Protein backbone atom coordinates (compact mmCIF):
# COMPACT_ATOMS: atom_id res chain seq x y z
CA UNK A 1 0.00 0.00 0.00
CA UNK A 2 2.73 2.37 1.06
CA UNK A 3 4.83 1.25 -1.86
CA UNK A 4 1.90 1.86 -4.20
CA UNK A 5 1.59 5.32 -2.75
CA UNK A 6 5.28 5.90 -3.25
CA UNK A 7 5.24 4.81 -6.85
CA UNK A 8 2.14 6.81 -7.70
CA UNK A 9 3.70 9.75 -5.95
CA UNK A 10 6.89 9.28 -7.90
CA UNK A 11 4.94 8.90 -11.14
CA UNK A 12 2.99 12.06 -10.39
CA UNK A 13 6.21 13.89 -9.64
CA UNK A 14 7.73 12.65 -12.86
CA UNK A 15 4.70 13.82 -14.81
CA UNK A 16 4.85 17.18 -13.10
CA UNK A 17 8.55 17.54 -13.83
CA UNK A 18 8.06 17.12 -17.57
CA UNK A 19 5.43 19.84 -17.51
CA UNK A 20 7.29 22.40 -15.46
CA UNK A 21 10.51 23.81 -16.81
CA UNK A 22 12.30 23.52 -13.46
CA UNK A 23 14.08 20.25 -12.85
CA UNK A 24 12.93 18.29 -9.85
CA UNK A 25 14.91 16.05 -7.63
CA UNK A 26 13.52 13.44 -5.26
CA UNK A 27 15.49 12.78 -2.12
CA UNK A 28 14.57 9.54 -0.34
CA UNK A 29 15.63 9.99 3.25
CA UNK A 30 15.11 8.62 6.74
CA UNK A 31 12.41 9.70 9.12
CA UNK A 32 14.10 12.08 11.50
CA UNK A 33 16.01 13.96 8.80
CA UNK A 34 12.82 15.75 7.78
CA UNK A 35 13.62 19.05 9.51
CA UNK A 36 17.25 19.10 8.44
CA UNK A 37 16.50 18.58 4.77
CA UNK A 38 13.72 21.13 4.84
CA UNK A 39 16.27 23.78 5.80
CA UNK A 40 18.99 22.36 3.59
CA UNK A 41 16.75 22.28 0.50
CA UNK A 42 15.93 25.97 0.85
CA UNK A 43 19.65 26.74 1.05
CA UNK A 44 20.50 24.51 -1.89
CA UNK A 45 17.78 25.89 -4.18
CA UNK A 46 19.05 29.44 -3.55
CA UNK A 47 22.67 28.36 -4.08
CA UNK A 48 21.84 26.54 -7.33
CA UNK A 49 19.95 29.56 -8.66
CA UNK A 50 22.88 31.83 -7.82
CA UNK A 51 25.56 29.68 -9.41
CA UNK A 52 23.76 28.27 -12.46
CA UNK A 53 20.76 30.57 -12.87
CA UNK A 54 18.50 27.52 -13.01
CA UNK A 55 15.45 26.84 -10.90
CA UNK A 56 15.21 23.52 -9.20
CA UNK A 57 12.59 21.88 -7.02
CA UNK A 58 13.47 19.36 -4.37
CA UNK A 59 10.94 16.82 -3.14
CA UNK A 60 11.40 14.72 -0.08
CA UNK A 61 10.22 11.21 0.73
CA UNK A 62 10.74 10.17 4.32
CA UNK A 63 10.32 6.83 6.07
CA UNK A 64 12.28 4.33 8.10
CA UNK A 65 15.80 4.17 6.64
CA UNK A 66 15.68 0.57 5.44
CA UNK A 67 12.03 0.82 4.39
CA UNK A 68 13.12 3.68 2.15
CA UNK A 69 15.99 1.63 0.76
CA UNK A 70 13.57 -1.18 -0.06
CA UNK A 71 11.17 1.28 -1.72
CA UNK A 72 13.97 2.67 -3.89
CA UNK A 73 15.10 -0.84 -4.74
CA UNK A 74 11.56 -1.84 -5.70
CA UNK A 75 11.13 1.14 -8.00
CA UNK A 76 10.69 4.43 -6.14
CA UNK A 77 12.26 6.95 -8.54
CA UNK A 78 14.43 8.84 -6.08
CA UNK A 79 17.43 10.68 -7.54
CA UNK A 80 19.42 10.59 -4.33
CA UNK A 81 19.28 8.56 -1.14
CA UNK A 82 20.38 10.08 2.16
CA UNK A 83 20.33 7.46 4.90
CA UNK A 84 21.47 6.96 8.46
CA UNK A 85 23.08 3.56 8.09
CA UNK A 86 25.59 2.46 5.50
CA UNK A 87 23.98 -1.00 5.31
CA UNK A 88 20.98 0.56 3.59
CA UNK A 89 23.11 2.00 0.79
CA UNK A 90 25.25 -1.12 0.60
CA UNK A 91 22.04 -3.05 -0.01
CA UNK A 92 21.21 -0.72 -2.92
CA UNK A 93 24.75 -1.13 -4.24
CA UNK A 94 24.38 -4.91 -4.09
CA UNK A 95 21.26 -4.73 -6.25
CA UNK A 96 22.92 -2.36 -8.70
CA UNK A 97 20.69 0.63 -8.03
CA UNK A 98 23.57 2.81 -6.82
CA UNK A 99 27.20 2.58 -7.90
CA UNK A 100 29.32 -0.19 -6.36
CA UNK A 101 31.95 2.38 -5.33
CA UNK A 102 29.39 4.83 -3.94
CA UNK A 103 31.44 5.39 -0.77
CA UNK A 104 34.29 6.83 -2.84
CA UNK A 105 32.16 9.20 -4.90
CA UNK A 106 31.99 11.83 -2.18
CA UNK A 107 34.44 12.84 0.59
CA UNK A 108 34.50 11.20 4.04
CA UNK A 109 33.10 7.83 2.97
CA UNK A 110 30.28 9.70 1.24
CA UNK A 111 29.02 10.72 4.67
CA UNK A 112 28.77 14.50 5.00
CA UNK A 113 27.60 14.25 8.61
CA UNK A 114 27.81 11.78 11.45
CA UNK A 115 26.07 11.24 14.72
CA UNK A 116 26.76 9.25 17.82
CA UNK A 117 24.86 7.50 20.59
CA UNK A 118 24.30 9.14 23.93
CA UNK A 119 21.98 8.90 26.92
CA UNK A 120 18.93 10.85 27.92
CA UNK A 121 18.02 10.61 31.57
CA UNK A 122 15.16 12.07 33.57
CA UNK A 123 15.70 15.66 34.64
CA UNK A 124 18.47 15.88 37.24
CA UNK A 125 19.68 12.36 36.44
CA UNK A 126 18.23 10.78 39.63
CA UNK A 127 19.96 7.44 39.07
CA UNK A 128 23.35 9.11 38.53
CA UNK A 129 23.98 7.56 35.15
CA UNK A 130 27.36 8.58 33.74
CA UNK A 131 28.63 5.85 31.49
CA UNK A 132 27.79 2.55 29.80
CA UNK A 133 28.61 0.45 32.87
CA UNK A 134 25.87 2.26 34.80
CA UNK A 135 23.38 0.73 32.36
CA UNK A 136 24.28 -2.77 33.53
CA UNK A 137 23.44 -2.06 37.18
CA UNK A 138 20.44 -3.83 38.65
CA UNK A 139 17.41 -1.58 39.03
CA UNK A 140 18.26 0.66 36.09
CA UNK A 141 15.72 0.44 33.31
CA UNK A 142 17.12 1.12 29.86
CA UNK A 143 15.09 2.00 26.75
CA UNK A 144 16.78 0.93 23.52
CA UNK A 145 15.47 0.36 20.00
CA UNK A 146 15.26 -3.26 18.90
CA UNK A 147 18.42 -3.80 16.80
CA UNK A 148 16.34 -6.13 14.65
CA UNK A 149 14.03 -3.37 13.53
CA UNK A 150 15.99 -0.14 13.79
CA UNK A 151 19.44 1.21 12.94
CA UNK A 152 19.25 3.27 16.11
CA UNK A 153 19.29 0.08 18.18
CA UNK A 154 22.12 -1.45 16.17
CA UNK A 155 24.27 1.60 16.84
CA UNK A 156 23.45 1.55 20.56
CA UNK A 157 24.44 -2.11 20.72
CA UNK A 158 27.70 -1.53 18.85
CA UNK A 159 28.54 1.51 20.99
CA UNK A 160 28.12 -0.53 24.18
CA UNK A 161 30.27 -3.29 22.69
CA UNK A 162 32.97 -0.80 21.68
CA UNK A 163 32.96 0.64 25.21
CA UNK A 164 33.50 -2.81 26.69
CA UNK A 165 36.38 -3.47 24.32
CA UNK A 166 37.95 -0.11 25.13
CA UNK A 167 37.78 -1.05 28.82
CA UNK A 168 39.98 -4.04 28.02
CA UNK A 169 37.36 -6.77 27.79
CA UNK A 170 37.66 -9.40 25.08
CA UNK A 171 34.79 -10.32 22.75
CA UNK A 172 33.29 -12.78 25.22
CA UNK A 173 33.41 -10.16 27.96
CA UNK A 174 31.85 -7.59 25.66
CA UNK A 175 29.07 -10.02 24.74
CA UNK A 176 28.30 -10.52 28.42
CA UNK A 177 28.43 -6.78 29.06
CA UNK A 178 25.99 -5.99 26.25
CA UNK A 179 23.70 -8.83 27.32
CA UNK A 180 23.59 -7.32 30.81
CA UNK A 181 22.40 -4.01 29.38
CA UNK A 182 19.68 -5.68 27.33
CA UNK A 183 18.53 -7.59 30.42
CA UNK A 184 17.68 -4.16 31.84
CA UNK A 185 15.49 -3.31 28.87
CA UNK A 186 11.79 -3.61 29.80
CA UNK A 187 10.41 -2.71 26.36
CA UNK A 188 12.21 -2.94 23.04
CA UNK A 189 11.10 -0.02 20.91
CA UNK A 190 10.42 -0.58 17.24
CA UNK A 191 12.18 2.57 16.03
CA UNK A 192 13.84 5.76 17.23
CA UNK A 193 10.66 7.78 17.62
CA UNK A 194 8.86 4.88 19.26
CA UNK A 195 11.65 4.74 21.85
CA UNK A 196 11.32 8.46 22.57
CA UNK A 197 7.56 8.05 23.02
CA UNK A 198 7.98 5.13 25.41
CA UNK A 199 10.52 7.06 27.45
CA UNK A 200 8.82 10.44 27.55
CA UNK A 201 5.12 9.80 27.09
CA UNK A 202 4.75 6.40 28.72
CA UNK A 203 7.33 7.40 31.34
CA UNK A 204 9.02 4.03 31.22
CA UNK A 205 12.71 3.62 31.95
CA UNK A 206 15.48 5.62 33.62
CA UNK A 207 17.63 6.18 30.55
CA UNK A 208 17.08 6.30 26.82
CA UNK A 209 19.95 5.43 24.48
CA UNK A 210 19.51 7.32 21.24
CA UNK A 211 21.16 9.39 18.53
CA UNK A 212 22.68 12.71 19.53
CA UNK A 213 20.54 14.32 16.84
CA UNK A 214 17.38 13.09 18.55
CA UNK A 215 18.14 15.24 21.61
CA UNK A 216 17.28 18.45 19.77
CA UNK A 217 13.90 17.16 18.64
CA UNK A 218 13.14 15.93 22.15
CA UNK A 219 13.74 19.42 23.50
CA UNK A 220 11.64 20.90 20.73
CA UNK A 221 8.70 18.54 21.09
CA UNK A 222 8.56 17.86 24.79
CA UNK A 223 9.93 21.16 26.07
CA UNK A 224 13.38 21.82 27.44
CA UNK A 225 14.40 20.66 30.90
CA UNK A 226 12.53 17.35 30.87
CA UNK A 227 15.64 15.34 30.15
CA UNK A 228 19.38 15.58 30.68
CA UNK A 229 21.72 14.64 27.87
CA UNK A 230 24.56 12.50 29.22
CA UNK A 231 27.68 11.90 27.14
CA UNK A 232 29.31 8.54 27.89
CA UNK A 233 33.11 8.37 27.84
CA UNK A 234 33.13 6.26 24.66
CA UNK A 235 30.66 6.07 21.83
CA UNK A 236 30.42 5.03 18.22
CA UNK A 237 30.58 7.03 14.99
CA UNK A 238 27.35 6.62 13.09
CA UNK A 239 27.83 7.84 9.55
CA UNK A 240 24.98 9.36 7.56
CA UNK A 241 25.84 8.21 4.05
CA UNK A 242 24.51 9.65 0.79
CA UNK A 243 24.47 8.32 -2.77
CA UNK A 244 23.20 9.08 -6.24
CA UNK A 245 20.61 6.59 -7.50
CA UNK A 246 22.18 5.75 -10.86
CA UNK A 247 19.08 3.97 -12.13
CA UNK A 248 16.91 7.07 -11.74
CA UNK A 249 19.34 9.74 -12.92
CA UNK A 250 20.12 7.73 -16.06
CA UNK A 251 16.42 7.72 -16.84
CA UNK A 252 15.69 11.33 -15.88
CA UNK A 253 18.98 12.89 -16.90
CA UNK A 254 19.44 14.47 -13.49
CA UNK A 255 22.95 13.16 -12.82
CA UNK A 256 24.68 16.54 -12.62
CA UNK A 257 21.98 18.04 -10.44
CA UNK A 258 22.02 15.06 -8.08
CA UNK A 259 25.79 15.33 -7.74
CA UNK A 260 25.62 19.07 -7.09
CA UNK A 261 22.91 18.46 -4.50
CA UNK A 262 25.00 15.96 -2.54
CA UNK A 263 28.25 17.91 -2.95
CA UNK A 264 26.69 20.98 -1.44
CA UNK A 265 26.12 19.02 1.77
CA UNK A 266 29.86 19.49 2.39
CA UNK A 267 29.74 23.29 2.04
CA UNK A 268 30.19 25.46 5.13
CA UNK A 269 26.61 26.66 4.90
CA UNK A 270 25.16 23.14 4.80
CA UNK A 271 27.49 21.91 7.52
CA UNK A 272 26.34 24.72 9.76
CA UNK A 273 22.68 23.83 9.11
CA UNK A 274 23.54 20.25 10.05
CA UNK A 275 25.19 21.41 13.26
CA UNK A 276 22.05 23.33 14.20
CA UNK A 277 20.11 20.08 13.82
CA UNK A 278 22.64 18.31 16.07
CA UNK A 279 24.16 16.32 13.24
CA UNK A 280 27.93 16.32 13.66
CA UNK A 281 29.51 18.27 10.81
CA UNK A 282 32.78 17.04 9.28
CA UNK A 283 34.34 20.50 9.43
CA UNK A 284 36.65 20.72 12.50
CA UNK A 285 36.10 24.48 12.77
CA UNK A 286 32.34 24.02 13.04
CA UNK A 287 32.72 21.15 15.50
CA UNK A 288 34.67 23.53 17.72
CA UNK A 289 32.14 26.30 17.28
CA UNK A 290 29.31 24.02 18.43
CA UNK A 291 31.37 22.27 21.10
CA UNK A 292 28.58 22.81 23.64
CA UNK A 293 26.37 20.40 21.66
CA UNK A 294 29.09 18.11 20.37
CA UNK A 295 31.05 17.34 23.52
CA UNK A 296 34.43 15.93 22.58
CA UNK A 297 34.12 12.28 23.66
CA UNK A 298 36.12 9.31 22.47
CA UNK A 299 34.48 8.26 19.21
CA UNK A 300 35.12 4.81 17.80
CA UNK A 301 34.58 4.10 14.11
CA UNK A 302 32.60 0.95 13.32
CA UNK A 303 35.61 -0.42 11.43
CA UNK A 304 37.74 -0.57 14.60
CA UNK A 305 36.02 -3.59 16.15
CA UNK A 306 33.48 -4.74 13.61
CA UNK A 307 35.14 -4.44 10.19
CA UNK A 308 32.15 -2.78 8.61
CA UNK A 309 28.51 -2.30 9.39
CA UNK A 310 27.59 -5.10 6.97
CA UNK A 311 29.92 -7.48 8.76
CA UNK A 312 28.52 -6.38 12.11
CA UNK A 313 25.07 -7.09 10.71
CA UNK A 314 26.08 -10.64 9.82
CA UNK A 315 27.80 -11.46 13.10
CA UNK A 316 25.52 -9.62 15.51
CA UNK A 317 22.08 -8.85 14.14
CA UNK A 318 21.09 -11.44 11.57
CA UNK A 319 18.95 -14.35 12.72
CA UNK A 320 20.92 -16.66 14.95
CA UNK A 321 23.53 -13.93 15.51
CA UNK A 322 25.02 -12.57 18.72
CA UNK A 323 21.98 -10.43 19.54
CA UNK A 324 19.58 -13.38 19.32
CA UNK A 325 21.78 -15.28 21.77
CA UNK A 326 21.02 -12.72 24.49
CA UNK A 327 17.42 -13.90 24.44
CA UNK A 328 17.63 -17.50 23.29
CA UNK A 329 20.62 -18.85 25.21
CA UNK A 330 19.76 -19.21 28.86
Amino acid at each position, binding site marked *: MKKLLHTTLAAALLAASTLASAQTLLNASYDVAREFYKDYNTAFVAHYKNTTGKDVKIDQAHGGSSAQARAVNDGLDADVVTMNTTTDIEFLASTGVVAKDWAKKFPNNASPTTSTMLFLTRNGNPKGIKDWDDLTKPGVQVIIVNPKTGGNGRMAYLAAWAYARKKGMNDAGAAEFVAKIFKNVPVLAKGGRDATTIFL*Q*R*NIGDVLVTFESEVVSVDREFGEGKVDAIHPSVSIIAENPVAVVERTVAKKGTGELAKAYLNYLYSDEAQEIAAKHALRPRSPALLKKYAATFKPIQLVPVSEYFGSLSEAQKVHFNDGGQFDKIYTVK
Partner: protein
Amino acid sequence: MALFSLARSHKAARVLPGFNITLGFTLTYLSLIVLIPLSALVFKTFTLTWPQFWEAVTGPRVMASYKLTFGASLIAALVNVVFGLLVAWVLVRYNFFGKKVVDALVDLPFALPTAVAGISLTALLAGNGWVGQYLEPMGIQLAFNPNGVVIALIFIGLPFVVRTVQPVLEDAEKELEEAATCLGATRWQTFSRVIFPSIAPALLTGFAMAFARAIGEYGSVIFIAGNMPMVSEITPLIIIGKLEQYDYAGATAVAVVMLVISFILLLVINALQAWQRRHTGAPA
Protein backbone atom coordinates in the same frame (compact mmCIF):
# COMPACT_ATOMS: atom_id res chain seq x y z
CA MET B 1 -19.03 -25.40 0.60
CA ALA B 2 -18.72 -23.61 -2.68
CA LEU B 3 -18.74 -27.00 -4.34
CA PHE B 4 -22.07 -27.95 -2.81
CA SER B 5 -23.83 -24.85 -3.98
CA LEU B 6 -22.20 -25.17 -7.36
CA ALA B 7 -23.48 -28.72 -7.79
CA ARG B 8 -26.91 -27.69 -6.66
CA SER B 9 -27.10 -24.76 -9.01
CA HIS B 10 -26.18 -27.03 -11.90
CA LYS B 11 -29.15 -29.27 -11.29
CA ALA B 12 -31.72 -26.63 -10.54
CA ALA B 13 -33.01 -24.32 -13.24
CA ARG B 14 -31.19 -21.06 -12.77
CA VAL B 15 -33.19 -18.05 -11.86
CA LEU B 16 -30.63 -15.56 -13.11
CA PRO B 17 -28.89 -15.95 -16.45
CA GLY B 18 -25.19 -15.67 -17.06
CA PHE B 19 -23.88 -18.33 -14.70
CA ASN B 20 -20.82 -19.03 -16.82
CA ILE B 21 -19.92 -15.39 -17.16
CA THR B 22 -20.27 -14.66 -13.46
CA LEU B 23 -18.34 -17.78 -12.52
CA GLY B 24 -15.59 -16.76 -14.91
CA PHE B 25 -15.58 -13.30 -13.43
CA THR B 26 -15.43 -14.66 -9.89
CA LEU B 27 -12.47 -16.89 -10.67
CA THR B 28 -10.59 -14.16 -12.53
CA TYR B 29 -11.26 -11.67 -9.80
CA LEU B 30 -10.17 -14.04 -7.05
CA SER B 31 -7.01 -14.89 -8.98
CA LEU B 32 -6.14 -11.25 -9.50
CA ILE B 33 -6.82 -10.12 -5.97
CA VAL B 34 -5.88 -13.17 -3.91
CA LEU B 35 -4.10 -15.95 -5.76
CA ILE B 36 -1.51 -14.05 -7.79
CA PRO B 37 -0.15 -12.00 -4.87
CA LEU B 38 -0.08 -15.14 -2.72
CA SER B 39 1.70 -17.18 -5.37
CA ALA B 40 4.31 -14.42 -5.65
CA LEU B 41 4.86 -14.98 -1.94
CA VAL B 42 5.36 -18.69 -2.41
CA PHE B 43 7.66 -18.25 -5.40
CA LYS B 44 9.90 -15.90 -3.44
CA THR B 45 10.48 -18.62 -0.85
CA PHE B 46 11.64 -20.98 -3.61
CA THR B 47 14.91 -19.07 -3.64
CA LEU B 48 15.66 -20.87 -0.37
CA THR B 49 16.86 -24.44 -0.07
CA TRP B 50 14.92 -26.76 2.26
CA PRO B 51 17.38 -26.53 5.15
CA GLN B 52 17.44 -22.73 4.80
CA PHE B 53 13.66 -22.61 4.74
CA TRP B 54 13.45 -24.84 7.77
CA GLU B 55 15.97 -22.73 9.65
CA ALA B 56 14.13 -19.52 8.78
CA VAL B 57 10.77 -20.77 9.99
CA THR B 58 11.82 -22.72 13.09
CA GLY B 59 14.29 -20.38 14.82
CA PRO B 60 13.59 -20.10 18.56
CA ARG B 61 12.33 -16.52 18.27
CA VAL B 62 10.09 -17.45 15.37
CA MET B 63 8.66 -20.44 17.23
CA ALA B 64 7.93 -18.29 20.27
CA SER B 65 6.19 -15.78 18.03
CA TYR B 66 3.91 -18.44 16.48
CA LYS B 67 2.86 -19.48 19.96
CA LEU B 68 2.06 -15.89 20.91
CA THR B 69 0.32 -14.95 17.67
CA PHE B 70 -1.88 -18.02 17.42
CA GLY B 71 -2.42 -18.32 21.18
CA ALA B 72 -3.35 -14.68 21.71
CA SER B 73 -5.54 -14.70 18.59
CA LEU B 74 -7.38 -17.77 19.87
CA ILE B 75 -7.97 -16.27 23.31
CA ALA B 76 -9.07 -12.96 21.81
CA ALA B 77 -11.47 -14.66 19.39
CA LEU B 78 -12.96 -16.78 22.20
CA VAL B 79 -13.47 -13.72 24.39
CA ASN B 80 -15.10 -11.99 21.45
CA VAL B 81 -17.45 -14.93 20.89
CA VAL B 82 -18.77 -14.60 24.44
CA PHE B 83 -18.97 -10.84 24.68
CA GLY B 84 -19.79 -10.29 21.03
CA LEU B 85 -22.81 -12.56 21.42
CA LEU B 86 -23.82 -10.56 24.47
CA VAL B 87 -23.55 -7.27 22.59
CA ALA B 88 -25.45 -8.64 19.61
CA TRP B 89 -28.14 -10.00 21.93
CA VAL B 90 -28.62 -6.67 23.65
CA LEU B 91 -28.69 -4.79 20.36
CA VAL B 92 -31.30 -7.12 18.86
CA ARG B 93 -33.57 -7.83 21.77
CA TYR B 94 -33.72 -4.59 23.72
CA ASN B 95 -34.63 -1.03 22.96
CA PHE B 96 -32.91 1.65 24.92
CA PHE B 97 -31.87 5.25 24.67
CA GLY B 98 -28.79 5.68 22.48
CA LYS B 99 -29.08 2.25 20.86
CA LYS B 100 -28.22 3.64 17.42
CA VAL B 101 -25.04 5.16 18.82
CA VAL B 102 -24.00 1.93 20.51
CA ASP B 103 -24.73 0.08 17.29
CA ALA B 104 -22.47 2.44 15.36
CA LEU B 105 -19.75 2.17 18.02
CA VAL B 106 -19.45 -1.54 17.33
CA ASP B 107 -18.13 -0.81 13.85
CA LEU B 108 -15.51 1.63 15.03
CA PRO B 109 -12.68 -0.92 15.30
CA PHE B 110 -13.30 -1.67 11.59
CA ALA B 111 -12.79 1.93 10.59
CA LEU B 112 -10.13 3.13 13.00
CA PRO B 113 -6.55 2.93 11.72
CA THR B 114 -5.14 0.13 13.82
CA ALA B 115 -2.10 2.16 14.79
CA VAL B 116 -4.43 4.70 16.38
CA ALA B 117 -6.11 1.92 18.31
CA GLY B 118 -2.74 0.62 19.47
CA ILE B 119 -1.52 4.00 20.60
CA SER B 120 -4.70 4.84 22.50
CA LEU B 121 -4.85 1.43 24.18
CA THR B 122 -1.23 1.83 25.22
CA ALA B 123 -1.86 5.34 26.56
CA LEU B 124 -4.75 3.92 28.55
CA LEU B 125 -3.13 0.80 29.96
CA ALA B 126 0.52 1.79 30.41
CA GLY B 127 1.75 2.24 33.97
CA ASN B 128 1.04 5.98 33.84
CA GLY B 129 -2.20 5.71 31.82
CA TRP B 130 -5.75 6.44 32.99
CA VAL B 131 -6.47 2.82 33.76
CA GLY B 132 -2.97 1.46 34.11
CA GLN B 133 -2.10 3.71 37.06
CA TYR B 134 -4.75 1.99 39.21
CA LEU B 135 -3.94 -1.52 38.05
CA GLU B 136 -0.20 -1.35 38.40
CA PRO B 137 -0.16 -1.02 42.23
CA MET B 138 -2.25 -4.20 42.30
CA GLY B 139 0.43 -5.94 40.28
CA ILE B 140 -1.66 -6.13 37.11
CA GLN B 141 0.26 -5.16 34.00
CA LEU B 142 -1.73 -4.95 30.82
CA ALA B 143 0.65 -3.10 28.50
CA PHE B 144 4.04 -4.16 27.14
CA ASN B 145 3.50 -7.87 27.66
CA PRO B 146 1.40 -10.64 26.07
CA ASN B 147 -1.70 -9.36 27.94
CA GLY B 148 -1.49 -6.22 25.84
CA VAL B 149 -1.44 -8.30 22.67
CA VAL B 150 -4.64 -10.09 23.68
CA ILE B 151 -6.38 -6.81 24.55
CA ALA B 152 -5.49 -5.21 21.23
CA LEU B 153 -6.72 -8.29 19.38
CA ILE B 154 -10.00 -8.33 21.32
CA PHE B 155 -10.51 -4.73 20.30
CA ILE B 156 -10.03 -5.27 16.58
CA GLY B 157 -11.99 -8.55 16.50
CA LEU B 158 -15.20 -7.51 18.26
CA PRO B 159 -17.21 -6.26 15.26
CA PHE B 160 -16.70 -9.51 13.36
CA VAL B 161 -18.64 -11.54 15.90
CA VAL B 162 -21.33 -8.93 16.54
CA ARG B 163 -21.99 -8.28 12.87
CA THR B 164 -22.26 -11.94 11.90
CA VAL B 165 -24.46 -12.97 14.84
CA GLN B 166 -26.74 -9.93 14.81
CA PRO B 167 -28.72 -10.66 11.61
CA VAL B 168 -29.19 -14.31 12.56
CA LEU B 169 -30.53 -13.31 15.97
CA GLU B 170 -32.86 -10.86 14.30
CA ASP B 171 -34.27 -13.63 12.14
CA ALA B 172 -34.63 -16.11 14.99
CA GLU B 173 -38.27 -16.54 15.89
CA LYS B 174 -39.15 -15.42 19.35
CA GLU B 175 -42.16 -17.73 19.26
CA LEU B 176 -39.87 -20.74 19.42
CA GLU B 177 -38.49 -19.54 22.72
CA GLU B 178 -41.98 -18.89 24.01
CA ALA B 179 -43.03 -22.34 22.92
CA ALA B 180 -40.04 -23.82 24.69
CA THR B 181 -40.95 -22.02 27.86
CA CYS B 182 -44.56 -23.14 27.59
CA LEU B 183 -43.38 -26.71 27.22
CA GLY B 184 -41.59 -26.37 30.52
CA ALA B 185 -38.01 -25.72 29.42
CA THR B 186 -35.83 -23.87 31.88
CA ARG B 187 -34.06 -20.71 30.77
CA TRP B 188 -30.82 -22.57 30.32
CA GLN B 189 -32.53 -25.28 28.28
CA THR B 190 -34.18 -22.67 26.07
CA PHE B 191 -30.82 -21.11 25.43
CA SER B 192 -28.78 -24.25 24.93
CA ARG B 193 -31.37 -26.31 23.01
CA VAL B 194 -33.32 -23.69 21.08
CA ILE B 195 -31.40 -20.49 20.60
CA PHE B 196 -27.81 -21.68 20.53
CA PRO B 197 -28.16 -24.24 17.72
CA SER B 198 -29.67 -21.65 15.43
CA ILE B 199 -26.92 -19.08 15.99
CA ALA B 200 -23.99 -21.49 16.33
CA PRO B 201 -23.01 -21.39 12.63
CA ALA B 202 -22.99 -17.59 12.64
CA LEU B 203 -21.04 -17.61 15.88
CA LEU B 204 -18.48 -19.95 14.34
CA THR B 205 -18.16 -17.71 11.29
CA GLY B 206 -17.68 -14.69 13.51
CA PHE B 207 -15.10 -16.60 15.53
CA ALA B 208 -13.23 -17.62 12.39
CA MET B 209 -13.17 -14.10 11.04
CA ALA B 210 -12.09 -12.54 14.32
CA PHE B 211 -9.41 -15.21 14.66
CA ALA B 212 -8.11 -14.79 11.11
CA ARG B 213 -8.07 -11.03 11.45
CA ALA B 214 -6.14 -11.27 14.73
CA ILE B 215 -3.45 -13.50 13.26
CA GLY B 216 -2.58 -10.92 10.63
CA GLU B 217 -2.86 -7.87 12.87
CA TYR B 218 0.23 -5.70 13.13
CA GLY B 219 -0.51 -2.00 13.60
CA SER B 220 -2.35 -2.02 16.90
CA VAL B 221 -0.34 -4.79 18.55
CA ILE B 222 3.06 -3.34 17.89
CA PHE B 223 2.57 -0.38 20.18
CA ILE B 224 1.30 -2.29 23.15
CA ALA B 225 3.26 -5.54 22.95
CA GLY B 226 6.65 -4.34 24.19
CA ASN B 227 8.21 -6.52 21.46
CA MET B 228 10.57 -8.50 23.69
CA PRO B 229 12.18 -11.44 21.89
CA MET B 230 10.82 -14.82 23.06
CA VAL B 231 8.10 -13.10 25.11
CA SER B 232 6.01 -10.58 23.25
CA GLU B 233 7.10 -10.60 19.62
CA ILE B 234 4.26 -11.39 17.23
CA THR B 235 4.97 -13.20 13.97
CA PRO B 236 4.28 -10.17 11.75
CA LEU B 237 7.02 -8.34 13.69
CA ILE B 238 9.42 -11.21 12.97
CA ILE B 239 8.61 -10.73 9.28
CA ILE B 240 9.31 -7.00 9.51
CA GLY B 241 12.53 -7.78 11.37
CA LYS B 242 13.65 -10.05 8.56
CA LEU B 243 12.83 -7.39 5.98
CA GLU B 244 14.97 -4.95 7.95
CA GLN B 245 17.85 -7.35 7.41
CA TYR B 246 16.98 -7.43 3.69
CA ASP B 247 16.17 -11.09 4.15
CA TYR B 248 13.25 -11.09 1.72
CA ALA B 249 13.24 -14.86 1.29
CA GLY B 250 13.29 -15.51 5.04
CA ALA B 251 10.44 -13.05 5.54
CA THR B 252 8.29 -14.70 2.89
CA ALA B 253 9.13 -18.14 4.29
CA VAL B 254 7.65 -17.18 7.66
CA ALA B 255 4.71 -15.58 5.86
CA VAL B 256 4.06 -18.80 3.96
CA VAL B 257 4.05 -20.78 7.19
CA MET B 258 1.52 -18.36 8.68
CA LEU B 259 -0.55 -18.61 5.54
CA VAL B 260 -0.59 -22.39 5.59
CA ILE B 261 -1.49 -22.60 9.27
CA SER B 262 -4.23 -19.99 8.88
CA PHE B 263 -5.60 -21.73 5.82
CA ILE B 264 -5.74 -25.09 7.57
CA LEU B 265 -7.43 -23.55 10.59
CA LEU B 266 -10.02 -21.79 8.46
CA LEU B 267 -10.62 -24.99 6.50
CA VAL B 268 -11.22 -26.88 9.74
CA ILE B 269 -13.62 -24.22 10.93
CA ASN B 270 -15.49 -24.32 7.62
CA ALA B 271 -15.73 -28.11 7.81
CA LEU B 272 -17.00 -27.83 11.39
CA GLN B 273 -19.66 -25.43 10.22
CA ALA B 274 -20.78 -27.71 7.40
CA TRP B 275 -20.92 -30.64 9.80
CA GLN B 276 -22.85 -28.63 12.33
CA ARG B 277 -25.35 -27.48 9.74
CA ARG B 278 -25.97 -31.01 8.50
CA HIS B 279 -26.56 -32.24 12.03
CA THR B 280 -28.94 -29.56 13.15
CA GLY B 281 -30.46 -28.62 9.84
CA ALA B 282 -30.32 -25.03 10.95
CA PRO B 283 -30.34 -22.38 8.25
CA ALA B 284 -27.02 -20.74 7.56
